[in-house]
C-alpha cells in the first residue's frame, strides 16, 4: 500500500502545471484511482494517476500551495513516499457505447489514462477539456492522438471560448466520465448524457476511509470520497 517510489522526471508542461514520472512497484492500477503523496507538509496530497506505462506512473499536477510547490522541487532520483493506488476507478466496461470525457483544469489528468484504457478496449471516446487560458492548456496532443478532443478556455484565448458545458450540449454519447471543480461537476451531472460518472475532489485527511474528512452527501446518507470514490454515478451523490 505504501511505496517509496523514485522520481524519474519532473518538469513544467504548462503555466503552473507539472508532469512527474515515478517508477512504482505494482503497476496494476485502475484509471480514476489516486495516490496519496507525502510532501514537506503534514497531510498527504491526493494526486490522480494520469498515465501508466510499464511500471512508470505519471502525475500531472498544478502548483497550488506548499505541498505541490514542494513536489515541483523534486528532482530525478529523489524518493517519494506514496500510498496507493487508492479508491475506485471509472468503469471501463463500456463496450459498444460512446463515452464523453469531460475534464476541467486539474480534473484533466485522470481522464488521460482513462481514455487510453478505453481506447485499448476499442471504445469510442470524445474529450472536452476546459482550461482557464491558453498558457494553462496541457496534454492536448496526447489527447488528440486518442480521438476527437475539444479544448475550451474561459477567456477564449484558445479553442472554444467559455466552459466545457458549451460543447457538451451538442455531444452525442451514452456515458459521461467527468472530473473537475465542483461547479463543473454540478453542471455536467445535470447534462443530457444518460449515464454520468463524476470524480470528486474533496479535502482529505487519511485518504483510506477512516477519518470522515472527505465525505460527500448522498441520498439517504453520505459517501467517503477517498474509499467509496472518488468516482461516483451522478445519482449517488448530492453535489
Amino acid at each position: 500500500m505504501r511505496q517509496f517510489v523514485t522520481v524519474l522526471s519532473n518538469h513544467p508542461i504548462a503555466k503552473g502545471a507539472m508532469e512527474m514520472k515515478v517508477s512504482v512497484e505494482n503497476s496494476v492500477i485502475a484509471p480514476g484511482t489516486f495516490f496519496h503523496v507525502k510532501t514537506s507538509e503534514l497531510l498527504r496530497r491526493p494526486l490522480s494517476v494520469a498515465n501508466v506505462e510499464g511500471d512508470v506512473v505519471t502525475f500531472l499536477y498544478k502548483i497550488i500551495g506548499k505541498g505541490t510547490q514542494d513536489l515541483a522541487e523534486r528532482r530525478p532520483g529523489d524518493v517519494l513516499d506514496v500510498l496507493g493506488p487508492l479508491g475506485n476507478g471509472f468503469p471501463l466496461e463500456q463496450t459498444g457505447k460512446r463515452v464523453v470525457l469531460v475534464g476541467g483544469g486539474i480534473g484533466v489528468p485522470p481522464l488521460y489514462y482513462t481514455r487510453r484504457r478505453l481506447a485499448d478496449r476499442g471504445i469510442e471516446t470524445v474529450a472536452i477539456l476546459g482550461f482557464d487560458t491558453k498558457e494553462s492548456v496541457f496534454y492536448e496532443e496526447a489527447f488528440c492522438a486518442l480521438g476527437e478532443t475539444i479544448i475550451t478556455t474561459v477567456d477564449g484565448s484558445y479553442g472554444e471560448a467559455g466552459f466545457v458545458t458549451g460543447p457538451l450540449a451538442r455531444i452525442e454519447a451514452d456515458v459521461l466520465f467527468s472530473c473537475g471543480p465542483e461547479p463543473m461537476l454540478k453542471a455536467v451531472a445535470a447534462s443530457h448524457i444518460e449515464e454520468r460518472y463524476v470524480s470528486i475532489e474533496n479535502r482529505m485527511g487519511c485518504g483510506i476511509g477512516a477519518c470522515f474528512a472527505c465525505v460527500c452527501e448522498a441520498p439517504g446518507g453520505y459517501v467517503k470520497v477517498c474509499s467509496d470514490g472518488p468516482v461516483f454515478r451522478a445519482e449517488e451523490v448530492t453535489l
Partner: protein
Amino acid sequence: MRLHVSLPGLQLKNPIMPASGCFGFGEEFAKLYDLSMLGGIMIKAATGESRFGNATPRVAETAEGMLNAIGLQNPGAKAIVSDKLPFLSTFDTEIIANVAGSTPEEYVYVAETMSADPTVKALELNISCPNVKCGGMQFGTDPVMAAELTRLVKAASSKPVYVKLSPNVTSITNMAKAVEAAGADGITMINTLVGMRIDVTTGTPILANRIGGLSGPAIKPVAIRMVYEVAQVVDIPIIGMGGVRTVDDVLEFIYAGASAVAVGTANFENPYVCQEIIEALPHRLDELGIDHILDVRGKAYEQIVSRT
C-alpha cells in the same frame, strides 16, 4: 514485558494505541497491518443515534498541524455494537470506546450500551469535542459540569471510565482533580485546541464549521506541559496524546507522567506509524538504557525535584 502496561480495565501489551477519531473502527488499518500488535484501540466517538456530522470542508491544514470539524459522524452506539465491535473482537488488543453526546442522558445511554459489550474494556468519556453545537466541550471546560457527568457515566458504566480532557481551559489541573474526585479511573489528554483558518482569497473560514480542533505536532508542547502538570496532582493514570509521531515523542509523554500514549493525526501522515513506533520502542529503550518503559514515568518532574 518491558512494554507491558497495566491500567484500570486494560492490559496493554505495549503503551501505544491509535487515538479516537483517527482510526475509525479499525477496518481500514486492518488491511495495512495486524491490529493485534497494538496496545489498544480508541475507537471513534459513539453517540446515541447516528450522526452525519458537519458540512465539508471538514479539515484544513496548518503549520505542522491540522484543524478538523468532523462533528462526531458515527453510526450510533447500537450500530457500533452490532456492526463494528464484532470485527474488532477478532483482534488481541484492548478496545476503548469513546463516549459522546449532547445531553447527560445521551452520555449515560451510550455509556451503558458500549460498556455492556464484552469487547469494550474501558470507556473514554469525551467531554472535550470542540466541533459540536451542544454537548461536548462545555462539559469539558467547567469542572463542576465535568465532575457531574463523570459521576453519571461512572454509575452507568460496567467498565472503567477514562475522562478525556480539553486543553481549552485556564486550569487543566482543576479539571483533572474534579474528574478524579468524581470517580474517574483514568484521564486521557489532550483533545484538540480550538483553532481557525481563513482563506484570504475568499475571506471566509476554510472549515464549513468555521472553527475546528487543532491537532498534530504543533500542539505537542502544550500537551506535554499539561500532562506534566496533571501527573503531579492526580493519582489516577494518564493516557497522553497530542502530536505524537515518533518513538521519542512517546518517551517525552512518559517522562512527563503519562502511563500510555495515543497517536492521532500522525496516522494520516503515515498509516503505519503505530506499528513503526511499537517496533522501534525496544531498540530505543536499549539505547537510552531504560529497562521497563514505565521506569521513567514522571521522571521529568521527579528529577527536577531532586535537582533543586
